[in-house]
């Protein structure tokens, strides 16, 4: 139980001249919700891509559930238990919600009726039960976000990487999804979430990592991290920490 579910060691990713992820070492414990925050362009999604396997690192290691997965392909990692959602939703056009989610369910359930049944269950958990037979392309933004989660959930992951599932949602939609995420964590799925909506981060995450310009600049409980001067400066610019002074800067 003390061994982290996923850990990165000195992980780096360079795209030509741009270093998107710079020497990141972190460890996510099993269970619970961990946050990954940072200003735009900090490299958070790239970090997710490295962990899920859609990108290969330029340097460093990734260890998942005790295995070195650094060189493993994305679909192999998915089978091992890494699930992820995409920041820009990517539904399979032309398929219904049920069929979309079934693609995920097929990973553990090769038989059609079994996969479709599990897909319906996963859709229910995120509140899409009433939209099961709707074409995926007809969904609203918030429903598409749920579809992303349901699809990843259907693969029965140990680790769920949620990439900005709350982006573009209005406050009441946010209020509706937060308990869903909490319930997933309650069912034993370890969640790592990239999020900008601070209220959600504060209420969901026990621990938060902060990424800026590819580098880890802080980590700890949400309340401490948001008071950290380096974090404030990363978001608001140099000198901001002094101008704001110490004290409660949390959302």
């Amino acid at each position, binding site marked *: 139980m003390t061994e982290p579910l996923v850990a990165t060691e000195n992980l780096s990713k360079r795209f030509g001249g741009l270093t998107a992820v710079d020497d990141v070492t972190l460890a996510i414990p099993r269970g619970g919700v961990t946050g990954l925050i940072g200003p735009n362009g900090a490299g958070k999604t790239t970090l997710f891509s490295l962990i899920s*396997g859609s990108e290969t690192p330029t340097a460093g290691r990734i260890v998942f559930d005790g295995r070195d997965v650094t060189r493993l392909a994305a*679909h192999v990692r*998915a089978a091992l238990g890494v699930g992820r959602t*995409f920041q820009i939703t990517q539904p*399979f056009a032309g398929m219904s919600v049920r069929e979309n989610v*079934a693609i995920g369910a097929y990973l553990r359930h090769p038989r*059609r009726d079994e996969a479709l049944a599990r897909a319906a269950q996963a859709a229910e958990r995120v509140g899409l039960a009433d939209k099961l037979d709707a074409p995926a392309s007809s969904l609203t933004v918030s429903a598409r976000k749920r579809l992303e989660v349901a*699809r990843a959930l259907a693969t029965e992951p140990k680790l769920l990487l949620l990439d900005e599932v709350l982006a573009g949602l209005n406050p009441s939609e946010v209020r509706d999804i937060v308990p869903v995420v909490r319930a997933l964590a309650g069912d034993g799925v370890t969640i790592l979430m990239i999020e900008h909506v601070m209220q959600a981060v504060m209420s969901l995450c026990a621990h938060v990592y902060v990424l800026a310009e590819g580098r880890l600049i802080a980590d700890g409980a949400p309340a401490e991290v948001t008071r950290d001067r380096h974090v404030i400066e990363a978001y608001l610019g140099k000198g901001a920490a002094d101008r704001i002074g110490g004290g409660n800067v949390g959302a």
Partner: protein
Amino acid sequence: MTIRPYLSILVAVAILALAVSLARSNTFANAIVTAMIVAIAGYGWNLLGGYAGQFSFGHAAFFGAGAYVDAVLQARYGVNAYPAFALAVLAGAGVGGAIGYLSFRAGLRGSYFALITLAFAEVMRIIANAAPIAGGAAGTLIRLDPSLTHFQFQSRLPYLWIALAFVAFAMALTRWVERRRFGAYLVAVRENEAAARALGVDALAVKLRAILVSAALTALAGALYAQYFLFVDASIAFGPWISIEALMGPIVGGLGTVFGPLVGALALHFLGEFARAVAGRIPGVDLALFGALLILAVALARDGVQGVAIGLARKWRARGA
């Protein structure tokens, strides 16, 4: 295995059987058999192009492999027709696997994949045209010897039924694949390969399997062609005509559907007849019309003739309601 999904196929086959039983003249029989052989090749193409979304412009490579292996094994090595036929299908799958492995492993997709399949087909055509084992430019003749053991028949009728049986098989195979995990994975890879990978789909394996089945089915069509016409040469076996007709049927009739290739093949056949009736002996008019139809099909009907029909039916129903 439930029967319901296959009912519509049975109905279509019954209608076709009716048409076949009305075949009287030899030219009509030839035309129908050819149309059905092309339809089978189209079903092969449809699995890779329609469902998996990988457009091949060189399916002649598989058709020709089937045709030549069937012909050469019988003509040159005295192998019995039935094992020759089976080996021809396997050979097609082998060629498909080789081309697929090289191309998909190299990450080729879209236009690049189309280009390389075109190149492979042409390479095979040039080699077949020069290779002594294939008869060189003169081609290969299977000795005419009608008997059941030689898979040859005196009259055209048995061929018609056999071709029809294989068309039915192709349709049933397509429906069967559709309803399995493999079929769902094909569509997922077509729609969004990256998202599919993140969900545990081994895209490379899926594409390889798709091309194996696709090539085998198209090779079957080629072997059937050889068995019916008893003659193959490089431009018949590996020529662009079959690569084009194999893809036109599914596109015109409806990509990635069970009836698309059949509807398309029939539509093209009738269009060809119409062109010949109107333009007489002028060569090329029928193919020019095909090309124009291809452009129109892409421009107007995303889901092919079937899609247009289904769309129209929907409108009528709405108007009545």
